[in-house]
């Protein structure tokens, strides 16, 4: 890959970057909807998130992230998941 990349290589780089971003957006959306269902009471008696909901959301995001990493490892996946690891 040293030297100037060819047009084809550049196209591939762009295309991969696009797929990766789509992937992350989709992951973020699935996480958001899943944690909303798991943590937020759906009678909507209030328009504020209460303390219990807030801490549930934080933990839900953290666990979802761990599941993503765990499944990634099982799939022999080194790529789509971010460079930095999740907090322990």
């Amino acid at each position: 890959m040293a030297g100037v990349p060819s047009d084809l290589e550049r196209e591939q780089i762009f295309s991969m970057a696009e797929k990766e971003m789509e992937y992350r957006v989709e992951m973020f959306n699935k996480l958001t909807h899943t944690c909303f269902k798991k943590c937020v009471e759906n009678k909507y008696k209030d328009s504020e998130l209460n303390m219990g909901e807030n801490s549930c959301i934080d933990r839900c995001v953290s666990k979802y992230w761990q599941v993503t990493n765990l499944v990634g490892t099982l799939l022999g996946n080194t790529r789509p998941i971010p460079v930095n690891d999740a907090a322990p």
Partner: protein
Amino acid sequence: MDKSMIGDLDSLPEADKLRMAAMIEQLQVRDSLRMYNSLVERCFTDCVDSFKRKTLDKQEETCVRRCAEKFLKHSMRVGLRFAELNQGAPTPD
């Protein structure tokens, strides 16, 4: 869409940066429209169950408002946590 979802662009040449930025903007527009659609679907499903009239009654409207507001607050919070994880920061316990 959260900033942290966007990779490191600094290493790219100028023309490619512009193109990448345009692509990101495209995805953001699409994403925000999708979010809008999902939000409507979720709040409608949770709040509207009676079809005896063709207009929302007061109670349904209140429910939809709260649902949307809660969802937005939720979504922002998730975005913050998500960004922290993307950067490897420790999270609140």
